């Protein structure tokens, strides 16, 4: 009875849980890397450091350059983190995909490996 319970779970709820875990893991990684927040503020100045323009032309140019630089720093740092998040999500997604494919095959792999061990 317990063996049948195991197989019922393995090919039923167990497999469903593996599929569901892709979504949970992706969301967890996304939250840990603050993906939503980083995308929303991708081009915002780094730590809100901005210069205020004066009256003269030179001041305006200087302030614009400062602000551009602040935005560039923010863009670069956020891009690096977003890239790291993307890589992690892809990596975990691929592993999860492999898990989904391999999951139903695992019970069958036990006798297969024993047979292979004997005949090889």
């Amino acid at each position, binding site marked *: 009875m317990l063996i049948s319970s195991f197989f019922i779970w393995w090919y039923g*709820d167990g497999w469903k849980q593996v599929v569901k875990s892709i979504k949970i893991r992706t969301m967890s990684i996304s939250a840990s890397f603050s993906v939503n927040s*980083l995308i929303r503020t991708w081009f915002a100045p780094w730590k809100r450091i901005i210069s205020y323009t004066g009256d003269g032309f030179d001041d305006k140019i200087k302030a614009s350059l400062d602000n551009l630089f602040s935005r560039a720093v923010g863009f670069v740092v956020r891009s690096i983190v977003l890239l790291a998040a993307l890589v992690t999500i892809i990596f975990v997604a691929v592993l999860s995909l492999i898990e989904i494919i391999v999951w139903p095959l695992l019970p069958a792999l036990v006798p297969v490996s024993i047979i292979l*061990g004997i*005949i090889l």
Partner: protein
Amino acid sequence: MNEQAINLGNARHKKARLGKKIGKRGFYLLVLITILCGSLATYILFIGGKNFAALLSAPAIIGFMLASWWKRDLSVLEPHNKSITDRLSYDVLSNLPISINDNKQLFQALSNNWQSDFILGHLTISDEAVLPALDNSPEALAKTWTVASQIADQNHSESIEVGFIIASLLMQSSAVKEMIVKSGNKAEDIQDIVNWLARSLDTKKNNKKYYGGIGRDWANGWTPLLNKLGQNISLSIEKYGANYGWLTDSEGVKAVESAFDNNAKAVALIGPDGIGKSSSVKALAQKLIEGKSTPNLAYHQIIGISAMDITSNAQHPGELEALIVNLVNEASKAGHIMLFIDDAQTFFSDQPGAIDASQILLKVIESGQVPIILAMSDSDFQRLRTKSQNLSNLITPVKLQELDQVGVMRVLEDIALGTEINKKLLITFSAIRAIYQLSDRFDQDMAYPGKAIKLLEESVPHAQNSMMTKETIEQTIEQISGVKVSKVAPEESGALLNMEDAIHKRMINQSHAVSVVSNALRRARAGVSNPNKPMGSFLFLGPTGVGKTELAKSIAAIYFGDESAMIRLDMSEYQQPDDVKRLLATGENESSSLLLNIRKKPYTVVLLDEIEKAHPNILNLLLQLLDEGRLTDESGKAASFKDSIIITTSNAGAQEIRERIEKGENIEDFANQFTDNLINAGSFKPELLNRFDEIVLFRPLNPDELKQVVGLMLEEVNKTLSNKNIKISLTDAAITQIVKEGNDPRLGARPMRRALQRAVENSVAQKILSGAIKEGDSVTLDVADLASE
């Protein structure tokens, strides 16, 4: 009720039992086998041993599959459907044998679980005592399952937990209920404790929190000034955790969220101390930092700044303005920040030397750069309205309501759970209820739940043997405030029963007055009198010098343990309408304030001398005091008189009492008529007289009684001389002489002390100095020995 049977021995039950057998150790062993065999198989495959690699992968795969099964299914066992069997939790099923025949067997199977300890421990009953008292009738088992399932439904729990079944077992047995009552609880407490357990289970399940991730703060600016002068409430919650679950969905927090979501510039949380203003802000901070608020407010941080610190950092208004503006600008530039000013009233204080910052606050709030939360009392907000209409119009007031008993108990339970874990002790449910019931006696200035939380915290060091009981709470209150709340001990009981004798050792006769007062004190201490009124209230009427004040002093000394446990006010000093303010003043050095004195010393005799001379407005206040046992100051804060004895004295009608006694009338016979005469003469209003527990008439002392008074006074003299080992006694003639000299019908026994001092003390002093009396002498003085004027 339609009881349902359960179907044990099914696949789910077997899985739970297998899950328990494997346990955490088995799981870790399976993981280890998987890793070791898998690694070894990979290594062997690389060095060319294909057959061994294939053989080793079999245990690795089996280990992985079994570990996955245990982790995701066997040890979790999510409830499947609505039937009771399929709702039983893993903890229940894994502990149950294949068949259960009766309640006792069920209890034995589950009583080792922590949830069982939680319920029985908080009820202070043991499983050994419960087992024989359970209802073990054949139909009881089916009812146990049904009631347990109902408890689960009431607590919105899909699964039926061990605690629900234990509670169901206890609820069914009248013998267990009796046991619970004997242990100082109520039978209904089972329901409250199981609800408490359900909440803690819910918190355990939902403990995973996200605070916005590593990039959250990169969208915000730096805040060096705020870091220096403020306290980041949100980061401290993120770092140290928080338990404001009960408040995050409260009306107050929702109102603040809604106000800011609708672009309010500032919100004032209004309410007395202890009502939860700061806690509401912390609950809001928790909600925001977890991103559970609206998108506009999610991940905002709340930084608390102290108005007191800021004003003390500024020497003059200009500097203060610059500092506030800099703080607000910094918060605004940094973004995602709310400012919380806890002691906001400091900014518009009328106190001498205080800087009025209401105009600066007006500018800052008007600019709308940063959402600001202020906390203040109702009277402070009213004062702000009077002072600056423009400023108060900009602020959205959110008035916090005091929690009811259920709410306060929930708060206490949640905090108690944390305290139990941190301090490694058990706080019994009767202790938690005692905290709720007695915190009013402990701190009169605070509102619920603050005063209850304060009492809980103060009681922790008093816990003994890792247990905090009702007695611990009572001891804490008695030690801190002096108010007697514990059961009457045998020694105290004896003192109460013989109170009249103890009083008569200090004063002569007035037996009726002594008896009336003693009875009132016994009623109060035994818990028979109305707890919402003063312990006793008396009007002492009679001529001067007959023992009215002496009786008040005796009560203070005998009942409250110290003659100085008395607040004494001469009401002839409160004859003007404005004197009401003086009586209710709250300033620190107002010695003439009744409110201030009672807050400092709630367990006391309040002696109001010459009450008839007080202004009628003060007499009206007295009506409230006698009716409700409390008075309220200007700011709306109540002061309780429920632990005090109110004694008012008056000489009104003294002449009439004297004349009637001289005519030979008995005081008890004319007491009612005398009271009517006082009302008719306009000395007292009937509504005032009706509110006293007793109106006690004191009669003038006759010569024999005055002689006894001399005896008492002589005892005092001997007490003083006891360090010289000298004892003085008087002949009867000498006593008669002193009474003759000291008796004044208008002043009663009052001149007697002077007469004794003059006649005896002066004489003894001369004899000691001349060497006629030496240490160790016992001397009897006759008339001739008494010093003359």
